[in-house]
């Protein structure tokens, strides 16, 4: 791809004889987009970041930056800046000098440094804080200093390593908006690492879902939410009801002993599959009108909606998000559209998955 700024080709990272942290990972990062590496802790997402930054070297495979192989380029020679999880601000320098650090290394003239630092600080809404010591700044302010310190160098890519995890919920949501907005204004590539799926969905152009050193799925937030490739992705991103079943034929799936119309295709007949239905796609109705009959087990009030846990006669749990209240212990019916059903093949690779999706969709509603 001509617009790719970073490219990983079969990159593996392994320490001694331990199982690899990253296992044959390939992907491309396009210029000017907001990417999120999402996964549970220890999945290898931070390792990808450290490889891009140059803090560690790949055991195998190539990493390209602007179409040039960059495996052995030292970190201080890369056009990349990082916002660290603990911010890593220099405690012996004040706000101004922290932001100016990279410029002073480049031996820029004082007047120019002053102007650029002021600009960067105003970008993160910290005008007037130049002479503050770092210890006088709050968590959110330190976060902003760290971002200013990165953007002042005008890098081509900014790497953010779980930068919001130390902030409280309200501030975190605020910073999500600000980061997204900042990325749009600057137009540089952001690569954001997080284990928080809501954060990933809210901020990204593209998400890479990573587990056990492999990229499970990549795509836009809606792609990944609506069309998860496997149980891990479906479970990790959002709440989901996952049951096993089989594909009788294309557009017809069997689960819980019944057959349902759906919109998925490209399967062998009677292929065993897993079926995902999101809790918000289930509608509570009368037993007669419901496609599924379940018994309400418990109910939680979540503010925006009720979270209802119910069980069908086979003992599968069905989570329902509904604005309507249900009565615990009562039999209810669940209604859903054919589009709400998402069928997943076992052990399908992302490539096969994308190909299959392309083959049976006409671009309406489904796929990319």
């Amino acid at each position, binding site marked *: 791809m001509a617009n790719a700024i970073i490219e990983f080709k079969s990159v593996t990272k392994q320490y001694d004889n331990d199982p690899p942290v990253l296992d044959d990972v390939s992907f491309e990062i396009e210029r000017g987009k907001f990417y999120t590496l999402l996964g549970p802790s220890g999945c290898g997402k931070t390792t990808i970041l450290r490889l891009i*930054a*140059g*803090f560690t070297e790949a055991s195998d495979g190539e990493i390209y930056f602007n179409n040039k192989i960059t495996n052995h380029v*030292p*970190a*201080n*020679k890369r056009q*990349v*800046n*990082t916002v*660290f*999880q*603990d911010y*890593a*601000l*220099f*405690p*012996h320098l004040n706000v101004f000098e922290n932001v100016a*650090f*990279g410029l*002073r*290394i*480049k031996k820029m003239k004082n007047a120019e440094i002053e102007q650029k630092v002021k600009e960067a600080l105003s970008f993160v809404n910290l005008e007037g804080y130049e002479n503050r*010591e*770092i*210890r006088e700044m709050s968590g959110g302010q330190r976060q902003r200093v760290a971002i200013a*310190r990165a953007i002042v*160098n005008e890098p081509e890519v900014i790497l953010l390593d779980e930068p919001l995890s130390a902030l409280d919920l309200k501030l975190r949501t605020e910073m999500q908006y600000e980061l997204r907005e900042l990325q749009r204004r600057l137009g540089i590539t952001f690569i954001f690492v997080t284990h928080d799926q809501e954060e990933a969905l809210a901020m990204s152009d593209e998400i890479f879902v990573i587990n056990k050193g492999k990229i499970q799925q990549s795509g836009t937030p809606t792609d990944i939410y609506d069309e998860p490739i496997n149980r891990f992705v479906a479970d990790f991103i959002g709440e989901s009801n996952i049951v096993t079943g089989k594909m009788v034929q294309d557009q017809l799936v069997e689960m819980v002993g019944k057959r349902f119309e759906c919109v998925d295709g490209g399967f062998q007949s009677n292929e065993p599959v897993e079926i995902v239905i999101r809790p918000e796609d289930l509608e509570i109705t009368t037993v007669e009108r419901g496609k599924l009959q379940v018994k309400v087990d418990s109910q939680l009030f979540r503010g925006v909606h009720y979270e209802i846990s119910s069980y069908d006669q086979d003992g599968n749990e069905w989570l329902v998000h509904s604005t309507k209240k249900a009565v615990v212990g009562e039999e209810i019916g669940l209604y859903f559209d054919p589009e709400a059903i998402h069928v997943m093949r076992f052990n399908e690779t992302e490539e096969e998955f994308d190909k299959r999706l392309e083959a049976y969709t006409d671009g309406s509603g489904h796929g990319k």
Partner: protein
Amino acid sequence: MENKVTRQLYMVPYVLWIVLFVIAPILLVLYYSFFNIEGQLSLDNYQKFFTPVYLKMTLSSFWYAFLITAITLLVAYPTAYLLTKTKHKHLWLLLIIVPSWINLLLKAYAFLGIFGTFGAANQFLELIGIGTQQILFTDFSFIFVSVYIFIPFMILPIFNSLNQLNPTLLDAANDLGASKWMTFKRVIFPLTIDGVKSGCQVVFIPALSLFMLTRLIAGNRVITLGTAIEQHFLVTQDWGMGSTIAVFLIIFMFLIMFLTGTKKRGV
């Protein structure tokens, strides 16, 4: 209220110790410093201190203490830095600290053997064809042995401050374009300066008043304030002058403590 009483009770041994063995002797030294050699109350001793003999002695004391501190620092900082990079850093640190538990006198005698005319050092020089040299009773041997003795005291505080350094800060400096040397100059050294300062304090101040080594290793060719005090008390019996020098030494120590005093920085 009983709590307060018991707490004060616990303080008694400490206060007693300080009063009897620190404050009282200092006051006595101060008292003696006002008596000249005939036992008359006067400021003679203080006048005498500002004569060239004593000023030169002071200057040479400072010069040697400075050399010892500087060389110790040059050896100790890289050593401490390497130590923090090793796998079993606390074991290595312990191995370096252990010699400092051995009595100073013993170590001095060991060096007499090593540096002596028929010692290991000269045997080595003979072997490589340089021939036997006078090593003992020179400035070199005095500074060498002093540095050897002080190194653990310098390594310890520097090691501690290096060990507390957040390693992500080094990544951050690297990320912002700093080379290894720049990272050291702008991040590592400024952030460990407190360790360096306390290391310099614990070396420089005792180095000012070294007297045993000056006799054993330097053969009294190096005269420091410490030697002068010892001579006045034990040889010339001029307790007044000895006390006066001691008073100045105390003043210098406080000055140094004050100048290298550390202000705490947070985060």
